[in-house]
């Protein structure tokens, strides 16, 4: 019993040990950058050059922006352009920068009951799904992917309704698993799809082709942006490290690593770097 008490005491000491705020950067980002393995591949380099630790909070883009809006993160890496511009307009960040992009694809059951495979634009495919009342799984979580999906329904002039339309309120991985189990269509970013497709044998890509160059709908482009939370609005943030992170992420060497990530495993990069040269 005495030994157990000692072990617990040590565990508490671990919990209570203060993290040095100086050397820690809080990055709020989307699940796709973490679940695809990109952050694991590039962050160690930044942690080495800045001699700091990066804490990654991986949530939907909507929640990541909300975390930034409350001053609870130092820097954001998200994909929800309109919400990002609003974030800057509200003064929560001084600027946003393009980092990289990939695209969204429509996946669905192998039999393609809605005949979505014959369409060229996402809104046409969505209209076909609605006409067939074929099951569609929605993220339903205000993530960047969910926003694009809602814009596509609006463009198709369809108000999606249950029972064929299922709003899950879950991450991309869970939503794809649901689509696999329920023979449903869903809109997914290509990176998560490629990382998980081995576990999703019942699903096929019905719009978007095999790589971003083959995607027939330009509106399915998925642009990621980086925003350092403004110290003017949120004095508590680590603005120095956040600024260094943004510079590092946009620098040619990091951009090159991003562009190479995934080639060895998937035969093509998961993200295409497109930072403007500063």
């Amino acid at each position, binding site marked *: *019993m005495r030994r157990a008490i000692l072990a617990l005491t040590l565990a*508490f000491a*671990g919990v*209570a040990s203060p993290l040095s705020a100086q050397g820690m950067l809080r990055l709020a980002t989307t*699940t796709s950058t973490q679940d695809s393995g990109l952050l694991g591949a590039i962050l160690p380099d930044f942690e080495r050059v800045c001699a700091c630790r990066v804490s990654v909070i991986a949530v939907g883009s909507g929640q990541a922006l909300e975390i930034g809006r409350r*001053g*609870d993160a130092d820097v954001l890496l998200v994909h929800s352009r309109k919400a990002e511009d609003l974030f800057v307009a509200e003064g929560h960040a001084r600027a946003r920068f393009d980092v990289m992009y990939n695209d969204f694809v429509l996946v669905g059951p192998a039999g393609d009951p809605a005949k979505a495979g014959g369409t060229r634009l996402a809104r046409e495919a969505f209209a076909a799904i609605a006409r067939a009342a074929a099951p569609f799984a929605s993220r339903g979580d205000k993530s960047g992917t969910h926003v694009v999906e809602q814009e596509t329904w609006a463009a198709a002039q369809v108000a999606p309704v249950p029972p064929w339309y299922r709003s899950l309120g879950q991450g991309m*991985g869970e939503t794809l698993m649901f689509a696999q189990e329920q023979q449903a269509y869903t809109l997914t970013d290509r990176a998560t799809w490629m990382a998980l497709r081995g*576990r999703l044998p019942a699903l096929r890509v019905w719009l978007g082709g095999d790589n971003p160059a083959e995607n027939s709908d330009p509106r399915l482009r998925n642009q990621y942006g980086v925003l350092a939370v403004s110290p003017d609005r949120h004095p508590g943030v680590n603005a120095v490290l956040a600024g260094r992170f943004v510079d590092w992420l946009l620098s040619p060497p990091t951009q090159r690593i991003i562009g190479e990530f995934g080639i060895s495993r998937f035969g093509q990069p998961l993200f295409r770097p497109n930072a403007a040269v500063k």
Partner: protein
Amino acid sequence: MSGLPGPDLLEIVALTLGVSGAALCIATLAGVPLGAVLGLVHFRGQRLVTLALYTGMGLPPVVVGLFTYLALSRSGVLGSLDWLFTPRAMVAAQAVIAFPLVAGLTMSAVAAVEKPVRQQVIALGASRWQAALTVLLEARIGVTAAIVAAFGGIISEVGAVMLVGGNIEGETRVLTTAIVVYTRQGDFAMAMALGLTLIVVTFVANVLLLQLQGRLRDR
């Protein structure tokens, strides 16, 4: 998505035990005395306090997480602590979840033995304080059960720690939130292994607590 190496798993188990253990200690230190007093003393408005405690026992952890999140956010009332997305925030949330469980169940345990035991010892000539002490000693098994129930409640909880901890790998990722991550990535084998680990950890913790209860009983 690669398998979790051993040291990482140990780190996750240690953090899980550290967070839930610390929260349980806080909840016990605050909840047992309060529950004992509520079980022993009768006063006006007691039913209201009891009702509040029972409501607290049924409070969804994710709601506690939300309140804790908003309070600890830099824009919140306790924002200056800078606890959000650290293990301290997780301890705070779990302590709030465990407290009504410990206090409420302690109160029930004490109240259950209060009348017969007190009458007995007062008949034997004990003072009021001696009688109260005897009641507490008699209720100790129920009190241990209260602590065990609270521990089971918080170590298996996922909603609150996910919100206030942020599920940061190597910092605030505990067994339950790790299970969520692996399930999200479709790695059911890893999720299952972590789930079994959680069951084993809970089992061992309960064995230790029950041993303690056994010793108390033998005294």
